[in-house]
């Protein structure tokens, strides 16, 4: 067995085993580094083009407006789509006055709405008064029963030294 034979056997063995592994490192590097960098670059380029596009769109819109104003001088005057008619008068609504014989109920309660500071920075407290007035009466013409509810709220700021 000659040296040359040995060398050929070893060479063939190494090529057979290692050649299938060749290219893996570059492929891995491309996948891990180059592809993400390319994607980043494309995004960056797209982003850098956006302001230019906006300026171009703005200029185009301005040109359109100016051209429209200039051309409108040569256009015939616009005609109204429809004539505006004066409003038709409506008969006044009769408001039924509350008769003198009615029932009246008054409900109220006070709520402590918490401490505040006045404009003079003095300590104070807000007291809220909530009320409900109810009026009931019978219409003598129709015999119908009417109920009128009137809610109202009052707020009182009471300074601390007056409490």
């Amino acid at each position, binding site marked *: 067995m000659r040296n040359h034979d040995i060398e050929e056997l070893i060479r063939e063995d190494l090529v057979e*085993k290692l050649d299938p592994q060749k290219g893996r490192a570059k492929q891995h590097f491309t996948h891990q580094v180059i592809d993400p960098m390319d994607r980043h670059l494309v995004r960056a380029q797209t982003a850098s083009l956006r302001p230019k596009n906006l300026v171009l769109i703005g200029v185009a819109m301005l040109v359109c407006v100016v051209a429209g104003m200039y051309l409108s001088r040569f256009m015939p005057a616009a005609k109204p789509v429809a004539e505006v008619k004066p409003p038709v008068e409506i008969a006044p609504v009769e408001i039924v006055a509350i008769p003198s014989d009615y029932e009246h109920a008054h409900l109220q309660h006070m709520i402590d709405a918490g401490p505040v500071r006045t404009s003079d920075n003095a300590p104070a407290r807000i007291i809220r008064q909530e009320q409900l007035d109810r009026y009931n009466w019978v219409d003598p013409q129709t015999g119908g029963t009417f109920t009128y509810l009137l809610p109202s709220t009052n707020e009182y700021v009471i300074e601390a030294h007056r409490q």
Partner: protein
Amino acid sequence: MELSVEELVSRARLHDADAFAELIQRFEGVALAVAYAQTRNAADAGDIVQEAFMRAWQRLDSLDDPSRFAHWVSRMVRNLAIDLRRRRKALPLDDSFDPPDSMPGASSMEIAEQKKQIDRAIRSLDELSRECVTLRYYENLASKEIADLLGITAAAVDMRLSRARNQLKDRLKPFFEEV
């Protein structure tokens, strides 16, 4: 015009990934030869080389002499191979076992047996001799180039190659003469 290694390294340091990809292309074979000499397993060698180049890309600033890029990567490959061996120490593999690619016929059995004998003969060499052999016979590197990569003299490379050839011949001769 082909760029020099130093130029490619300089470009890669400025985050030129294409320049680094070119470096991988140039030195992947060397790295595989070193990794295979260490691991004695082609798939493991492929994994280690892949990892080594990724590390090299991340640590390129720590390379002092750009002309020694191949040497630097080879050292990284060697360290990764040592790490792999340490990790696998707890679960030692039977080196003598080589799974067949397919059910062999009479002639393919002979070929498979020949390959197994070559593989065993290469494995029987010491690490440094194995690196010399794989770099010479896989990458066709001159003794001077191998010496630069391994940090030994060209004469030492020649001596190791000569001894390795004799050792391989002794191991393979009986078997191949039988065949």
